């Protein structure tokens, strides 16, 4: 658990400026108000009633990506994103959103995300949209032009969903391969909600990769959404319900680790202990749960053995997820795994410490800032001459795809989840061994 609450840490900021160079929004505009130090001061002034709730402060607070890079850089661990969240909560108390927005939000956060079956149904609809010619019609009629640029771009880069017939539940138990590897332990996969609908293939690859690296893998069917999107939109009650459900589900399993393959989900799961700071009856259980959370790359590097993996001779670069590097503190493992893949040229991405601008749904809410951040990021990608951009979180993956799209690089640059690249490289190595 963090030593200080956000309220306490707000008062420990000495304005030394150590956070400045870590902040992606300050990097774009140079405005002090777009940096962590300015945000802490503004939030504090708002919480102390020294400035009123109004549109100006609301806009300032909504410009923060909540990426946590500043917390990582801060010598005294000021919890900037959580302080910004406190300010946002206060703004939300004073300002009622329009009826339609409230209804949509309630539907999305309370009636859709927490229910895996409903999400799967939405996945079916989306698949139908992509496959039935409706998408073609929507494009032809120019209906998308009614939506903002960022939404149009997101629509263009959505992955093709697997048909419902192929989106069967993930296997509840997969034994670890013991032929090449020693048994590394037993793990449970956290499959995520959107991840499981849109990136089912990545979840399947995650199970394969873990098993081939020596782990027995279980996937409990009754797990629910981690709650990150709800939490960041001020729906704390729903988040707590989901957290309790997940803790109950996973504590029944006798596993060494609970594995996440999405930086955003993993970071939220690690925050459960913090969520129950004031609920002693849940705190211990949350703590035990949090101690088991690992990112897939981290657990393979530390406990498993990546089998022989062979790339396709391509040049790759890696854009880390902020939640993975700053909240989960997984900084080196993904690159360590990439370095073990033969016939793959890895080039570090300059300024990879800075967020790509995805940040949940930030790219839809703040399209101008997110677009500027992404444009700069794509400049660095071009410097690496990479054919493949590797990410470790679905939001970053879609954002980087949007970047490739907007820069017209579709024919030369692919964006791939690290799990997919590793799983394919392991498979390639096996094929080569068997044929040759």
């Amino acid at each position, binding site marked *: 658990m963090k030593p200080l609450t956000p309220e306490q840490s707000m008062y420990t900021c*000495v304005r*030394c400026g150590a956070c400045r160079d870590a902040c992606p929004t300050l990097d774009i505009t140079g*405005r002090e*108000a777009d940096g962590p130090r300015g945000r802490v001061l503004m939030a504090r002034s708002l919480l102390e009633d020294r*400035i009123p709730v109004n549109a100006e402060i609301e806009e300032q607070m909504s410009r923060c990506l909540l990426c946590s890079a500043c917390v990582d850089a801060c010598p005294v661990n000021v919890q900037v994103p959580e302080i910004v969240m406190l300010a946002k909560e206060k703004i939300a108390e004073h300002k009622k959103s329009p009826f339609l927005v409230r209804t949509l939000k309630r539907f999305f956060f309370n009636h859709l995300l927490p229910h895996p079956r409903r999400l799967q149904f939405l996945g079916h609809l989306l698949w139908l949209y992509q496959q039935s010619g409706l998408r073609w019609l929507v494009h032809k009629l120019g209906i998308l032009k009614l939506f903002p640029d960022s939404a149009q771009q997101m629509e263009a880069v959505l992955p093709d969903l697997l048909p419902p017939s192929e989106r069967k539940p993930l296997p509840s138990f997969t034994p670890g391969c013991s032929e090449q590897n020693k048994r590394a332990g037993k793990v449970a996969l956290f499959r995520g909600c959107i991840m499981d609908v849109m990136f089912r293939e990545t979840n399947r690859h995650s199970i394969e990769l873990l098993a081939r690296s020596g782990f027995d893998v279980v996937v409990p069917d009754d797990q629910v959404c981690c709650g990150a999107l709800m939490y960041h939109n001020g729906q704390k009650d729903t988040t707590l319900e989901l957290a309790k459900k997940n803790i109950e589900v996973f504590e029944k399993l006798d596993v060494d680790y609970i594995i996440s393959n999405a930086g955003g989900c993993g970071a939220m799961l690690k925050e459960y202990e913090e969520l129950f700071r004031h609920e002693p009856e849940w705190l211990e259980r949350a703590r035990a749960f949090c101690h088991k959370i690992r990112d897939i790359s981290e657990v393979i590097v530390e406990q498993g053995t990546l089998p022989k993996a062979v790339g396709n001779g391509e040049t790759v670069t890696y854009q880390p997820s902020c939640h993975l590097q700053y909240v989960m503190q997984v900084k080196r493992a993904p690159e360590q795994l990439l370095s073990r893949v033969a016939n793959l040229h890895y080039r570090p991405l300059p300024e990879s410490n800075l967020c790509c601008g995805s940040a949940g749904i930030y790219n839809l809410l703040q399209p101008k800032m997110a677009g500027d951040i992404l444009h700069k990021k794509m400049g660095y990608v071009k410097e690496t001459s990479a054919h493949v951009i590797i990410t470790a979180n679905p939001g970053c993956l879609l954002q980087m795809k949007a970047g490739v799209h907007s820069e017209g690089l579709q024919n030369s640059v692919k964006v791939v989840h690290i799990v997919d690249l590793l799983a394919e490289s392991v498979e390639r190595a096996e094929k080569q061994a068997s044929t040759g």
Partner: protein
Amino acid sequence: MIEKIISELQRVIDKERVLWRKTDMMTYAYDASFATQLEPKEPEAVVIPLSTDEVQACVQLANKYQVPLYPRGAATGQTGGAVPIKGGIVLDMSKMDRIIEVDDENFQVIVEPGIIQANLNAALKKYGLFFPPDPGSSKMCTVGGMISNNSSGLRAVKYGVTRQYVLGLEIVLPTGEVIVTGGEKSRALKSVSGYDLAHLMIGSEGTLGIVTRIRLKLLPLPPARGIVLCSFPKIEQAIEGVRAVYHSGIIPSAIEIMDIYATRAANKMRPDLNLPETEALLLFEVDGNKDIVALQVKTISEALKSHTDYVKFSDDPEQCENLWQSRKIVGAAVGNLKPGGIRVYGGEDICVPFSRLPEAIRRIHEITNSYNIVCGIYGHVGDGNLHTAPIIDINNQQEVEKAKQMIEEIHHLAIELGGTTTAEHGVGIVRAPYMEIEHGQALDVMRRLKKTLDPNNILNPGKMALPT
């Protein structure tokens, strides 16, 4: 009137880079100083220029309307030096941060002032070169800010201060002219032609001109470093130890001291460091090629043998990093000395003659004890520069008042011991009251210079005890 100036500014500079809203003004009202934490000072407008022309346009407008103009880097200062104490316009120079040219054949680089020290050195690494002055804030401070304050840092004992590396500056004068010091087209590494205007600007804290380009001398990057860590039951023994090392014929690249409170704080934050909690802990760093480093580390350890019984040393990069950790974390760690307290900056960069160091440390402890304020001391003992770090509850008015008095006593102590109130962080508004005592008649010359160059008193007025 400010509305008129803002609309004129927006005619010459991108609207997005001319700021005037309430929240923007709040965020330009401070730096890291205790003074501006207690009393923030808001500007009326902020401009983020991207070119010398834009800076010049701002200066011309400021003169036309007679409003103050405050050049600012990353606002990491600890003396309120770049804070707009009289309203007016802040010029946020941090987006002018390009490296214009690395002239590695001539061991120099031309940069814009907003570049961050650590980013400059990261870019120079591939040329095998570096810009040596390295303040503790190297990851956030700008090179322009370093020139304004003539900054130094841990390695000043061997490499000196910023002043020694400035070959030339492009400056927008307070009256709007743009000049280049050190020769318009020069790439010479030294010159005695004409008045040394660059050195007049360095350390002038933005009162005499706005730096827009900088030509810096670079040195070859030492390939290896070594560390010696040792502890002493008494401060006097530690100072004797430093003397012994100097007499062994070695100039370390850094000599750092931590008092018992600073050491305790570091242990609290990182128990694995397991530092001996004695009156003084010393860290020596040496650099050079690998063989020379190994030899120096050994010589220093030998020289210290008769002064201490606790010496650890290494020239292995990983172990060095570990030994160096205690010094690296101390600035943040001291905050843990008192729960609910924060470290405030005050009396934090005094410098005393080397011979008076033991007395200085003992008397600072006496002063802080008499006020019952927890305070760690660490610093660059090799040149007598001490960082005192009081930890107080800034929401407790009584404690704030006590701290202010205590800080004043520390400043007076520095002067009494034949030292100075500031050796790194500058004068700003915090050390202005001591300018007269420290400089006597020389302050009058400074005031005359200011008047000559800035007749309308446009640039950074109200600082350094210059005319208001």
